[in-house]
């Protein structure tokens, strides 16, 4: 169960619309390292997690990512308001506009629609946690690349906030990996079996 709070996690207040920037930043909603994939990946992976602390971590980070979808969507919404037809053509936003007008559609900057493959639910505890460590780094580098392309301080400010959150989440998934390893009786081989499915006695190698 979730309850909506009528506020952004961090304010987004962009004075100057800029559809060319929106075309790039939309990748952080529907792209391969975007917030939509992150939120649903953690929330769908949590059912395989072996320890209450990790179940809590995946639930809370997944929930925060839902708020990040909203923040990036607010950035896209504000960057594309009150556009003239001339601006739409000049900025290259026309290729998006033709199908989606100024709606916020989850796609990568390349135009590829959002793929559920980004959810990457394997049902294997160590595969999923390591996936998430990589995913947080990939989201961080996408925000770094966006910051290279943006001059407007109104846009940079919330993007920097989102980038910092990837760093913190990486740290907490690192804690989750350590906790998962501590769950094992055999500390010499953490990968002998998948605690979400196997029991030590029924492994076939």
């Amino acid at each position, binding site marked *: 169960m979730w309850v909506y709070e009528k506020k952004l996690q961090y304010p987004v207040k962009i004075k100057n619309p800029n559809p060319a920037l929106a075309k790039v930043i939309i990748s952080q909603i529907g792209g391969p390292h975007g917030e939509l994939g992150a939120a649903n990946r953690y929330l769908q992976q949590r059912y395989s997690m072996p320890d209450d602390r990790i179940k809590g971590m995946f639930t809370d980070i997944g929930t925060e990512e839902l708020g990040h979808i909203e923040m990036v969507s607010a950035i896209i919404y504000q960057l594309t308001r009150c556009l003239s037809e001339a601006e739409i053509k000049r900025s290259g936003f026309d290729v998006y506009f033709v199908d989606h007008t100024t709606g916020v559609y989850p796609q990568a900057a390349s135009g590829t629609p959002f793929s559920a493959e980004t959810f990457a639910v394997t049902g294997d505890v160590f595969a999923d946690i390591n996936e998430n460590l990589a995913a947080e780094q990939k989201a961080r580098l996408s925000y770094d690349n966006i910051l290279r392309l943006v001059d407007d301080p109104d846009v940079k400010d919330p993007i920097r906030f989102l980038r910092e959150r990837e760093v913190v989440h990486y740290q907490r998934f690192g*804690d989750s990996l350590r906790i998962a390893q501590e769950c094992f009786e055999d500390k010499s081989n953490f990968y002998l079996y998948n605690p979400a499915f196997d029991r030590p006695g029924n492994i076939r190698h």
Partner: protein
Amino acid sequence: MPDCKTLLNQIRALDFALLETGLYLNAYPCEEEAIAYFETTRTARDAAVAEYERHYGPLKMASGVHDNKWVWTKGPWPWECEAN
């Protein structure tokens, strides 16, 4: 009495502190200093939210009635410039 946006930003800051401490406590549940900080921050957060909702409108649907009127849907909504 702080204005609407100042108070909203205070709530955001308190929520941020709670989230950060909460994620930390998920991994380190026995850290007494973090538990004390979480509880102090939560008390301040509850007070700030109560003041905000009394003067500026609901943050949750459960607080959507004010003076016997349904005010939950009254804008601006969070993604609009005017709300931030």
